[in-house]
């Protein structure tokens, strides 16, 4: 098969998927306690609607969205609210969370049917409210509220839906397993999202290192008009929205614009699966599949876990961590977040938890920039990362408008032989530049 790809930049880090790609998704039973953050999307945090000692069932709404770019939060187990307080999470050291202690019953709120399989396509107007109510966010890692992407402004015309099954991050195999084990549900999710957007054409973009997932998805899409699998070359960041769009449709999103400005919307395959559950099972987003991997975890696995499950429960299930544990990452190694402590809960965007030992979490000596240009060669956006980093080092944030185009994929820093902390500097410059812009406006 012909694998397509994007043109500018890109790197190929060691894939490391073998640790888990052959392992079927295991279901982690509801834990004894969950800690559910109110801030789980790239938008305004939800406001808690429960108080200590409240009895809740799984699927009950415990956080109200605050504004349009915000999503509701639901209880992921049944039990009693213990505390509504500040907890350390992957978002920050003190984040507002609801702690629920399990009653062991795992009872769901009325209306949820966790075993339902059918989708009623005769009433597509009911889809969007169901998806908004379910608290769907982008499951690839960015956690952008899905309903915002599904309600595009009136002045844009959409013609294509793309499901992102590229999973270009090393180590991660959650989407891979989901496509192998639940292709039918993903295909139904695709039909739901397509109906909401009112588009005919749909693609599922998958990297060519997952031939089994490609075969299963092709099978599941058979007979579905306008929908097909697009095989993409294994290359990071193939799964970045703009690069995937370029690969499949050969359309480039202009700087400062969104994919919908070129007529397409990209959703993760995990989001499509969650959309199926939200519509067919009336089940809000309270659990997800994630990959637990790295050399410092004894038994790497793909797990389906409830949102709010703390890491210790995951570690127990995976045989414990080794003595050599050095770094813990939420997400993949290219764009994941390093955690400060193990006492944090899994959230909607946690696509993986990586436990790195000394051999993986190496601190390399930094060298001065020798202007070798490899960061430019790696940048999928065609930017000049070394110059942006220099500007940030010299606090010249006002000159860093270029950084606004950065997708923060980390390819530049991966490629840098000087091992400069390019991503750190560029992200710093980006946020400082934004702040200066806003200050100027005000």
């Amino acid at each position, binding site marked *: 098969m012909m694998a397509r790809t994007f043109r500018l930049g890109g790197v190929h880090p060691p894939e490391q998927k073998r640790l888990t790609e052959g392992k079927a998704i295991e279901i982690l039973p509801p834990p004894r306690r969950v800690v559910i953050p109110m801030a789980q999307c790239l938008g305004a945090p939800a406001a808690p609607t429960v108080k200590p000692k409240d009895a809740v069932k799984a699927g009950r709404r415990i956080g109200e969205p605050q504004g349009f770019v915000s999503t509701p939060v639901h209880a992921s187990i049944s039990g009693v609210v213990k505390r509504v307080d500040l907890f350390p999470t992957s978002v920050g*050291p003190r984040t507002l969370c609801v702690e629920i202690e399990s009653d062991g019953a795992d009872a769901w709120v009325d209306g949820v049917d966790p075993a339902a399989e059918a989708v009623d396509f005769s009433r597509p107007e009911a889809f969007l409210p169901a998806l908004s109510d379910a608290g769907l966010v982008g499951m690839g890692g960015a956690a952008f509220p899905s309903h915002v992407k599904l309600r595009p402004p009136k002045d844009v015309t959409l013609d294509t839906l793309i499901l992102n099954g590229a999973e270009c991050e090393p180590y991660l195999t959650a989407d891979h397993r989901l496509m192998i084990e639940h292709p039918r549900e993903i295909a139904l999710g695709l039909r739901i999202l397509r109906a909401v957007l009112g588009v005919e054409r749909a693609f599922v973009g998958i990297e060519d290192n997952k031939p089994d997932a490609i075969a299963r998805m092709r099978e599941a899409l058979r007979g579905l008009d306008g929908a097909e699998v697009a095989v993409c070359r294994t290359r990071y960041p193939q799964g970045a929205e703009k690069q995937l769009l370029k690969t499949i449709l050969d359309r480039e999103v202009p700087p400062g614009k969104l994919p919908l400005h070129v007529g397409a919307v990209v959703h993760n395959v995990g989001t499509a699966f969650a959309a199926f559950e939200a519509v067919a099972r009336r089940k809000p987003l309270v659990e997800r599949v994630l990959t637990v991997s790295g050399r410092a975890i004894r038994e790497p696995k793909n797990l389906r876990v409830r949102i709010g499950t703390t890491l210790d429960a995951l570690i127990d299930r995976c045989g414990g961590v080794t003595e050599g544990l050095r770094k813990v990452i939420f997400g993949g190694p290219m764009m994941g977040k390093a955690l*400060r402590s193990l006492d944090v809960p899994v959230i909607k965007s946690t696509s993986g938890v990586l436990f790195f030992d000394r051999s993986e979490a190496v*601190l390399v000596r930094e*060298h001065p920039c020798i202007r070798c240009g490899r960061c430019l060669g790696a940048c999928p956006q065609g930017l000049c990362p070394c110059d942006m980093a220099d500007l940030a080092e010299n606090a010249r944030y006002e000159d860093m408008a270029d950084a606004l185009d950065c997708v923060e994929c980390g390819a530049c820093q991966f490629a840098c032989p000087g091992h400069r902390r390019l991503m*750190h500097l560029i992200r710093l410059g980006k946020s400082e530049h934004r702040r200066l812009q806003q200050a100027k406006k005000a």
Partner: protein
Amino acid sequence: MTDPATPTSGGAPAAAAGPAAAPELLVSSWPHVATPDTVPRIMHSVWLALLPACAAAAWFFGRDALVVIGVTVLGCVACEALFLRARGRSWTEVRAAALDGSAVVTGVLLALNLPAGSPWWMLLVGAFVAMFLGKHVFGGLGCNPFNPALVARVFLLIAFPAQMLTWSAPVDRFAQSTAERIAADMGELDGLTYATPLGKLKQTLRTGADPTQVARVRAQMREQHPTLDLFLGRHGGSLGEVSVLALLLGAAFLLLRRIITWHIPLSFIGATAAITTLAWALKPDVHVDPLYHILSGGLVLGAFFMATDMVTSPVTRKGMLIFGAGCGAITAVIRLWGAYPEGVSFAILIMNALTPILDRHARDRRFGEARRRAAA
């Protein structure tokens, strides 16, 4: 600014409940994986790529070549260490930086740009100038605007023209010294034997009052230097520039290792070839053929190893093409109409000065910019 190891906050949170006590976790921005390539690895690859040229120098110029290379490299590494220490680095840092290969690269490149008979004191002056004026006055590795080896070469050329322009033809046997060789050559022909091919060319043009005389000497000279000899290195010149074959072997290694790209060498040699072809086509009696220009002098050495110096050349593709073409054009102009027989060093240094402005203005196309906007 950097993110060193940050210990976990506080004593032992919930993780203590697990089998392992709360470990010290490393916190840093993504990405958490990195290429195995390092700056020292790149630098070491560059001097390794120059080894064929060094071997060719030893073959053609005998033991003197090895002395020149050895003294210059040791001098550069010693000066690098000296200036790092003078700038207040710890001994461990000095050791690491002096051995990161960058000083070795400068040393080898400088040596390959010198004649085989260079006196030892001149080599040490060159090493000092390269490291001091070429590199550390600007802040050391990565901060120098000009190629340090070329700064030193041009300094030596101006300061010690007699020593810098005393060439010898290849020696007959390894142990023969350059001085012996020159003495042996003195009697021969019109005293031009030990000049470089380009030097002879310039001299012919300069004495060119009588056009028929020029044409005769030029034809004779081309006969003395058949293309194959120029390619293999059997002619006078500085240590590293003579053997195009050896240089190309090393260049192929750098291209395969992706340390250099084709942009600068190709545009450099292409521009020189274009201009010399034009001159040759217009006045075939006066100017020599472009192949002669490409294979003689420091063009190949300069195009593949000196102009491609990462620190002093542009990072953008467009910038590289302009940079290379500029080097090539200036080289050709100096060779054809300038006072010096050879212009590669000057050309590269002049274009080095333009590198920052090229980096700023010759930007490559961004994702989503212009060309595609019409389609979208």
